[in-house]
């Protein structure tokens, strides 16, 4: 079951043909140049090999002809290879230099922490009261570099949004840094690329690049605690949540302060759930809550045994978290 994306093949991680920001575009060009050189070298060497196999030869004299020691092949072949490799190495190092640092100081810093198998996202502000936490979905303003600090809460993961930047490991005990920038608004998919246990295959995230105005709007909304209405079925759902879910999940503004699982304060604002695995609809939510262990075997989220009434009210409660 995978419904996080439209059914047709869209190849959201195709970094070889697509790049949407200055942290990955130099690498995109490097990839094209290297791939062309490599393909050309292959064709030349393959042609040499085939010619060597089939070219016409002098009639056989019965003697083994060792007059031509053939060393010029090695001199010329290795000589050309060396020059080519030297050029490629220089180009690669220049590219590395171009992507190591952003062209201007980052406008925004956020911390992403890898968990088995989801991502915690913390937005920092000079005023600590304006910090906020979300999960699995990163919003950034277009056109400016964003500094990402990478941490891990358990094992080694790797953060990779290929059409925006290369990957960096998230290593427990270390804080790695990487920057990325999106020049075009859009939704860019990321994946964990370091094997991190059973559900490594289902540890994805999305980067939502927005115009600065939209981003500020989103940021302001995320900073607020949850606003809860008090209809009776929502109260029942809230009780179910506090009984069954709050040990791990938190909702700012309520007594749910669990820290082991994604913060759900603004759950409804997210496009995907379960580490980028399912689309965030009430139906998928209910499926996920009831059958987490079948859909994502080994995930830290248990399959919850709830009565239909409990499930309905819980779902109603979750739908208020916008």
């Amino acid at each position, binding site marked *: 079951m*995978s419904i996080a994306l439209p059914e047709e093949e869209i190849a959201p991680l195709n970094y070889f043909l697509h790049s949407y920001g200055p942290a990955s575009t130099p690498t995109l060009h490097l990839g094209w140049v290297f*791939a062309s050189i490599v393909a050309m070298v*292959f064709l030349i060497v393959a042609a040499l090999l085939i010619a060597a196999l089939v070219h016409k030869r002098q009639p056989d004299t019965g003697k083994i002809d060792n007059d031509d020691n053939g060393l010029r092949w090695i001199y010329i072949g290795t000589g050309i290879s060396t020059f080519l490799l030297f050029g490629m190495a220089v180009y690669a190092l220049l590219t590395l230099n171009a992507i190591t640092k952003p062209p201007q100081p980052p406008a925004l810093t956020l911390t992403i922490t890898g968990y088995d198998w989801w991502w915690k996202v913390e937005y920092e502000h000079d005023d600590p009261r304006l910090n906020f936490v979300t999960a699995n979905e990163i919003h950034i303003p277009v056109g400016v570099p964003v500094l990402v600090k990478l941490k891990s809460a358990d094992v080694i993961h790797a953060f990779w949004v290929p059409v925006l930047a290369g990957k960096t490991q998230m290593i427990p005990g270390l804080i790695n840094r990487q920057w990325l920038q999106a020049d075009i608004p859009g939704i860019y998919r990321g*994946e964990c690329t370091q094997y991190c246990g059973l559900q490594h295959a289902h540890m994805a995230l999305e980067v939502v690049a927005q115009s600065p105005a939209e981003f500020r709007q989103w940021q302001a909304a995320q900073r607020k605690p949850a606003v809860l209405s008090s209809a009776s079925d929502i109260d029942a759902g809230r009780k179910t949540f506090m009984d069954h879910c709050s040990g791990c999940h938190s909702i700012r503004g309520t007594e749910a302060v669990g820290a082991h699982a994604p913060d759900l304060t603004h759950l409804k604002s997210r496009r995907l759930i379960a580490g980028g695995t399912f689309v965030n609809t009430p139906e998928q939510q209910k499926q996920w809550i009831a059958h987490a262990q079948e859909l994502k*075997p080994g995930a830290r989220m248990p399959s919850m045994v709830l009565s239909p009434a409990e499930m309905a009210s819980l779902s109603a409660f979750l739908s208020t978290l916008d």
Partner: protein
Amino acid sequence: MTDSADSSLIRVPEVGCAPRGSDAEIRLASLWETPPGWRGWLSTVDHKTIGLRYLVTAFLFLLLGGIEALIMRLQLARPDQTLLTPEQYSQLFTMHGVTMIFLYALPVLSGFSNYLWPLMLGSRDMAFPRLNALSYWLFLFAGLFLYASFPLGQAPNDGWFNYVPLTDRLYNTGPNIDVYALGMVLLGISTTVGSINFIVTLFRMRTPGMSIDRVPILVWGTLTASVANVFAIPVVSLAFFMLWLDRQFGTHFFDVVNGGKPLLWQHLFWMFGHPWVYAVVLPAMGIVSDALPTFCRRPLVGYAPVALSTMATMLLGFGVWIHHMFATGLPSLALSFFGATSMVISIPSAVAVFAWIATIWLGRPVFNTPFLFFAGFVLLFVIGGLSGVMVAAVPLDFQLNETYFVVAHLHYVLLGINVFPVVGGIYYWFPKFFGRMMSETLGKWSFWVMFIGFNAGFFPMHIAGLLGMPRRIYTYAPNMGWNTVNLITSVGAFVFAAGLLLFLVNVVVSLRRGALAAENPWAAPTLEWATPSPPPAYNFAVIPIIASRHPLWEDWVDEGYGRSSLETGYLLMEGRETLGTTPLDARPDVILKMPDDSYAPFFLGLFSSLVFAGMLLHAWDFTGLMVMASSLSLIAWLWPSKALAQRVPAIKTDKGVAHV
């Protein structure tokens, strides 16, 4: 030691002939032959038997690893498959890697080298025959050890590179990782003693006249790999032992909470891991460098550059391990250095490629099955090398690392540079091993099916990687753009497996019905082809005296050093004996007394493996008992024996013979 105080101890070995059926030959055979039956089976130290055991065992592991791969390819053929649970998939990809890299790739080459070295070098056995037997038994038991928990569904399951902290006890509570850790330490002993044996054999056991610039390239390859192993294995053994201590006794080498460093594991693992990659390809490249010229009817172009590039590769190979760790957040200055070395390391490979192509160009290729494998190998080597240059570029590696592009690259390298030469090498040396030729028709079929299947299976993996498919995912969504490439890869994998099956059928059929092989069916130049097929237990009735790099081609090509003497040489038959020579020039130096068959290696191997089993199960009494049993085996092994006493330390060099 050239002069002994007691000159009566000095013995000058007789020089003479010992044609088949002569009294001398019969006496030699009785000295060297292993008695039949299970006793001989457990006690033999014949390098040829040990070499074949290595080959057969490694091939069985290749089949196991291959079956694991095919099951994974079924799971990945279509998106969202549920053939395997995530846990089963993890164990399969881990055991696939462990099996192929540790239990197939190096042991199979050790098999060739064990069998061929003494024959190529003109000796009657390896320098330490009992150590050789021990090395095999330990390899076998370590292999069984690593598989012991597989039937219980508890096999190693965190990938062959086994990164901490995922493999700490906190995240992996079962015996899976302990089996891997202890199994690797055990296997490391086998590899280390084997490597030491190769090194000493090269420098001590070459026949007179085979100066260091006349040894076959396979010998250079295995020597280089062995020296590298002696340096690299302790690193990984230590790392695995530290991991085991962390897991079982609460030490904190890798434990983050208590100041341990997960990155330390990556450094230790790859400091070993990268040299190991070269250790499993350089001897295979040697196979090609030695066998290709036979089918091109001319000597290898650039013997010296190829031999030197072999060693240069290994030397550089110790300075590139960081390229497995470009994405760990190391400073970009360090990355630049290791990225540049990783590109420089392709220069020695270019030397080898152009040497092979020039050999073909300037020669007269005979399109036999082994030649097809070697020529095909050159193409796969080039593809694997070029994709290697792409991943060596640091910024590109930030994208390619941990995607299927790397999976494609490493399979082109390991299958292309190891499996193709190995299969070609078996076609080539099969007549020497068993005295029968393999079928050419089946052979050509097996080559083309393998070659097409391999490329169909593994080339699309490059594309999957460029489309962003990460390694080690047990399934994928249908809309990621990976469906078609994965389906093609799965089909290709099965075609490749069918080709390998054809090869195995060919082996079985040819063992029974192959045409009988003469001494030198391919008209090859090197010394192993001077012995009967299969070679007798003593290898050479007389220790030959060599005058050129191609002793069997001296009728057709004049290298300007006179003629080798193959029929007349040192007799040496007062017990099991062979000749020790000087390290560089191979002048006769000492008569080496070789050990008889012995049970000690088997029992030492068995008991020391049981020591590890005891440690795994925390059965400390049993472990202690087994340590004692191992010590007793070692005492029995080292017990002084009159027959082995080096009572004749020096040979008075007979100048007329030794310097032909």
